[in-house]
């Protein structure tokens, strides 16, 4: 009987083998299927006297051909690849967006400046201006379109995240279910593996790995715990947690991920990496933010520079230019740049603004303001490189200003508490909020603001430049009435000196406020006229001692004082002090020289007096008058003395000329001026003679100056000079006395006109002549003027961004390059990831994959075995028949 049972066992084993092979063949194309094999062993032999006789074969096990570490490797590689895949497919879109012909910003910036060029070449033509208007509109819409596309992509990512999260949840449930089935079969099958269920679970894990990084722990009872990302448990045994998307804490438009446990929602955004989820999040932070910020910075830079320059011009209708686009620091924009985190401490009464102060310093990055300690300790983090760029304590006083990277962050009011966080996005919305404010072509300000002209009657060879404007926000422009306040005339008082005068009344120009008199000109040179320092001030000597008539004295009667010039560094608050000690009776010209020797100080002195009512003395001769020791009344002097005669004799004296003294007469009165500021000392020798003297600086009425009593020495009268001091920015001048030339805290007036002209001349015959004048007016009807247009054109390639290193085009190129590099890298990692996955798949397949040929061979083998076993039965029957037939 044993032969038959041996044969039957053989047939059973072969049949099992055949069905396993069949299972393998039909599942050759099933995803995740592992090739199954059987293990056969010989049955317990029968012990006989001759020894152990074999009793057939038995199948002990059907097992999967698999290798845990290969399965894990494949899951890891799948995660890595689908991370890159998700990243790549998104960044390719972005890459194409910025390089595409229709959306290429570079081209529309070019077109804008092209149109500007056309309009500038023909500033009075409305045609060119109309084209410019159209191109300006197109430019804004192009900026808008680009940012909208970025916002759309952000939305798409939000939707993709939603889908992924629901997929993760359903896979979690599926795995938990499989855990349950596997563990129950585990116990029922007494250690036998439910091969196909295990395959299914492995496949589910692979599907999950596609979405996010996974790690697994085998519990030993057939269940597998699954964690996603960086160890966030998703499945434990047969239970799962639910993942969901929530609005981002700082930016609600950006969805983030959170686990729900009962009633608690815990955000896990940063902890979920790998897989499609990781790829999308990485794209959002690495590429999309870069694009947003770079685009924003270009928009801000363009708008700011164009606006500023445009406001320095004059339009076709004689008005100062308006902002071309919406101001980058409009109140709404300043508020919109800040987002408060949703989980900040309660009493959300905090208010803050972010202004952009200096485009050149602006980085293409978002920032985070964190209150991270007691007593208002805060830090500002630049997100592009994670650097802390500012750190300070918030004092008790609000508003508090934080200046960082060209931003001015103002904490206006409210209670800022430890743990509060704010996201600052300087460039966000700059493109989509860009709006053209100009509606009519006439409004383009292509002309310059100044019209400088040489007077028709100029005899010398002086000339004046067309002038440049750097700011119209000074007291010297009236932006409401589109005029200069005041119009200015530069009048040469000699070939080497000139006065800058207020020409509001052309019949009677008067000194500017602050004064700019007695300026020195070097014929043959070219020199600027106005102070250049935007923070510069002028202080004038307005003390009670200045230019008083000092009767009976050859000195000016100045009491002497200590003049202090103090400079405060605006950044550090460091104070530098310079001092000049002015001696009693020291002349204004020497004080001015001492002051000019200080750094940041330029002082100008001048002195003047007016004489009239020349009354002859008792001896009946013309009065004998001297000025600074020079006798003015020679023998040919008329009697009574006339102002005209004195003028000629003063102007003829080389001694007086050397002291910068000139005189002019209107027939009745004589005006004596020294452009150097020396003391003016009059001497009168005739008894009973008199002359009416006044000092115009004091504004006091004239006083009679009489000669000496008969036989006495000449009487004297002295008038000292006054001083105008130009100070650089952040400087203050003070005096230790209120009785001297300067008051203790003299008034400082801004001397920055916001415009500049250059005077030039030839030498000799070509030098300016006294009386030559140059006028500076508002360029009201400069329809053919294109100076501001030319300045605007220069912006097209001006390096206004990144500390003067990048033009708009350069910045755009940089952004395209950055995105290109990211794309390129993603492409490379994609092929690397794909080949890694292919390798690990190959390794796994070489273990668990079905080879149909192999199975075919196996079929043949098993068929032969089966046939042999069947033959064995036939043999046994033959043996039995033989016995029966005996």
């Amino acid at each position, binding site marked *: 009987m044993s032969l038959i049972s041996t044969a039957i066992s053989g047939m059973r084993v072969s049949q099992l083998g055949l069905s396993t092979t069949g299972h393998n063949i039909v599942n050759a194309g099933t995803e995740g299927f592992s090739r199954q094999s059987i293990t056969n062993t010989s049955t317990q032999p029968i012990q006989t006297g001759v020894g152990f006789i074999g009793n057939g074969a038995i199948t002990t096990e059907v097992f999967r051909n698999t290798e845990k570490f290969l399965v894990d490797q494949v899951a890891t590689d799948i995660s890595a690849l689908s991370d890159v895949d998700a990243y790549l497919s998104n960044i*390719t879109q972005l*890459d*194409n967006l910025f*390089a595409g012909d229709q959306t290429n910003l*570079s081209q529309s910036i070019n077109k804008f400046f*092209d149109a500007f*060029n056309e309009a*500038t*070449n*023909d*500033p*009075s033509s409305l045609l*060119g201006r109309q084209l410019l208007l159209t191109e300006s509109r197109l430019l804004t819409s192009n900026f808008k379109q680009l940012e909208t596309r970025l916002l759309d992509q952000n939305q798409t990512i939000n939707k993709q995240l939603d889908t992924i999260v629901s997929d993760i949840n359903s896979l979690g449930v599926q795995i938990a279910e499989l855990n349950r089935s596997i563990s129950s079969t585990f116990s029922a099958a007494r250690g036998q593996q439910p091969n196909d269920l295990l395959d299914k679970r492995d496949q589910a894990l692979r599907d999950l790995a596609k979405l996010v990084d996974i790690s697994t722990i085998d519990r030993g009872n057939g269940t597998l715990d699954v964690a996603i990302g960086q160890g966030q448990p998703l499945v434990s045994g047969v239970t799962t947690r639910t993942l969901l998307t929530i609005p981002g804490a700082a930016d609600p438009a950006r969805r983030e991920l959170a686990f729900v446990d009962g009633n608690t929602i815990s955000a896990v955004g940063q902890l979920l990496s790998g897989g499609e989820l990781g790829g999308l999040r990485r794209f959002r932070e690495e590429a999309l933010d870069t694009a947003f910020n770079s685009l924003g910075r270009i928009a801000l830079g363009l708008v700011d520079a164009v606006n500023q320059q445009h406001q320095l011009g004059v339009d076709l209708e004689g008005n100062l230019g308006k902002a071309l686009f919406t101001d980058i620091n409009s109140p709404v924009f300043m508020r919109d740049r800040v987002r408060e985190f949703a989980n900040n401490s309660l009493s959300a009464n905090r208010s803050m603004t972010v202004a952009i102060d200096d485009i050149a310093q602006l980085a293409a990055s978002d920032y985070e303001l964190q209150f991270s300690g007691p007593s208002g300790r805060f830090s500002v983090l630049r997100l592009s490189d994670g650097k802390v760029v500012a750190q300070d304590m918030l004092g008790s006083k609000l508003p508090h200003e934080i200046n960082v990277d060209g931003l001015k962050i103002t904490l206006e009011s409210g209670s800022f508490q430890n743990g509060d966080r704010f996201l600052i996005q300087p460039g966000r919305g700059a493109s989509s909020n860009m709006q053209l404010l100009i509606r009519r072509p006439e409004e383009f300000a292509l*002309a310059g603001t100044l019209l400088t002209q040489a*007077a*028709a*009657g*100029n005899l010398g060879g002086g000339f004046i430049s*067309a002038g440049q404007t750097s700011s119209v926000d000074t007291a010297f422009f009236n932006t409401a009435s589109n005029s200069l306040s005041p*119009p200015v005339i530069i009048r040469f008082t000699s070939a080497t000196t000139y006065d800058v005068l207020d020409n509001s009344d*052309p*019949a*009677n120009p008067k000194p500017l406020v602050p004064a700019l008199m007695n300026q020195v000109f070097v014929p043959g040179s070219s020199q600027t006229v106005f102070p250049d320092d935007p923070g510069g001030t002028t202080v004038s000597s307005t003390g009670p001692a200045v230019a008083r008539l000092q009767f009976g004295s050859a000195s000016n009667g100045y009491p002497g004082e200590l003049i202090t010039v103090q400079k405060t560094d605006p950044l550090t608050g460091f104070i530098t002090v310079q001092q000049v000690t002015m001696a009693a009776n020291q002349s204004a010209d020497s004080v001015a020289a001492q002051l000019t020797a200080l750094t940041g100080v330029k002082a100008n002195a001048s002195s003047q007096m007016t004489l009239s009512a020349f009354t002859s003395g008792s001896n009946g001769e013309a009065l004998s008058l001297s000025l600074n020791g020079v006798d003015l009344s020679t023998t040919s002097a008329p009697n009574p003395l006339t102002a005209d005669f004195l*003028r000629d004799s003063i102007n003829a004296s080389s001694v007086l000329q050397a002291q910068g003294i000139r005189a*002019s*007469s*209107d027939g009745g009165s004589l005006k004596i001026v020294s452009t150097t500021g020396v003391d003016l000392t009059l001497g009168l020798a005739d008894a009973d003679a008199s002359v009416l003297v006044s000092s115009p600086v004091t504004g006091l009425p004239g006083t009679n100056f009489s000669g000496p009593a008969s036989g006495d020495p000449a009487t004297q009268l002295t008038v000292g000079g006054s001083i105008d001091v130009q100070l650089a920015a952040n400087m203050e001048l003070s005096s230790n006395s209120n009785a001297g030339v300067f008051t203790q805290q003299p008034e400082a007036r801004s001397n920055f006109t916001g415009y500049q002209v250059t005077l030039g001349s030839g030498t000799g015959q070509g030098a300016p*002549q*006294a*009386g030559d004048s140059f006028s500076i007016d508002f*360029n009201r*009807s*400069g*329809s*053919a*003027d*294109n100076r501001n247009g030319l300045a605007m054109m220069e912006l*097209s*390639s001006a390096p206004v961004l990144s500390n003067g290193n990048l033009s708009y*085009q350069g910045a755009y*190129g940089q952004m*395209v*390059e*950055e*995105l*290109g*590099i990211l*794309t*390129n890298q993603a*492409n490379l990692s994609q092929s690397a990831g794909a080949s890694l996955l*292919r390798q690990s798949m*190959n390794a796994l397949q*070489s*273990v668990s*994959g*079905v*080879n*149909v040929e192999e199975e*075919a061979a196996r079929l*043949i083998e098993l068929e032969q075995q089966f046939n042999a076993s069947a033959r064995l039965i036939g043999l046994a029957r033959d043996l039995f028949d033989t016995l029966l037939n005996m």
Partner: protein
Amino acid sequence: MAAIRISTAQINSTALAGMLDVQRAVSKTQEQITTNKRVTTPGDDPIAAARILQLNQELAKVNQFNQNLSTLENRLQREEVALTGVSDLVFRAQDLITQSGNAALNASQRGFIAVELQSVVDGMAQLMNTQDASGEFIFSGFQGREPAFVKGEDGRYVYQGDDGQRSIVIAPGTSVAVNDAGKSLFVDIASREPNITGSAAASNLASPPASINNVRVENKTAFAEFFPEKVVIQFNDVNDVNPPAANFTVRQVSDGRVLNSNVLYTPGEKIEFGGVSVRIKGDPAPGDSFLVESSNKKSLLGGLEDYISQLKSLTDSSADMASLNQQLGLTLDNLGSAQDRLLETRSSVGSRLNQIDSTRSNNEEFELTVRATLSALSDLDIAKAVSQLAQESFVLEAAQASFARVSRLSLFNFI
């Protein structure tokens, strides 16, 4: 070591992946060939992509410069034509003036010459009011919407423009003037004899504005003494005189000396000082002022107009004839200076036109270089790409054929 097993799925997927790879390469090469671009997206070659953007911008700039050159050329050619015309008319005026000095002519015959001379003046003014293609007056400085010269009430031409000179950028850092203001060209012509001009202050309030005209030298000796003084005529408060009436004060600019104080104003009446007379017309407001400047310059048209009025007014008396002769000499002098100025400007225009030519060829050269670099960066080497495509398609075909053949081999075919 056991040989590595290969699963059937693996055989298929490997073959498929291989074919897909080749197919992708074929399609990329084909895209490159159809667009003739090596770099189709920045991701292909980020560095080159940024450089391409930059080069394209440079090309756009050159294009701009070339357009500017055409605009400039057009303007300068117009200016040249106008200047040549004025120059010809100056010759004609010189002929007529010389002719008018012929002692054989009588007053009425000189009158005919005066009429002809006036038509020459009108012709000059017409040329000086040349407009460009978009209607801008090219000799008005910045005041391009105003004709450069307009005939005033006294029949004399007045310059309306300013000193403005506009420029145009034709190459990086190079800009060239597109116009020459009429002021320096036609107005500020050096003159042997001092000359006088009057103007109303821009800040005058009267509406309609009062005007100053008929500014002329009455007494040469007195004027020569007065020169180079300037005078301001300012209208005072009506209550400064009794009974209240419009009145003005004449004051020297240099020292404020009052020449005539509180003179009652009669519109159009002669106001005289320093050998000069002017007339003010209209209704000036208190505070309005008029500047009378003497200068050593005379305008081209003004000089001729002066001479015409002399021609018309002088009799055949010997004193008048002497004065006419003197005036003739001066006027010819003035015309000579004007002619010199015209020649100077024409040669400056000519050199600017030359500069256009040289800049244009420079720009062309630059463009060529940029295009070459651009092409090297972005354009495709077609021959290379085509041969690459051929090779890739060959590989693809081979892969397909071999896969089809290999997959036909199976043990199952034999059982």
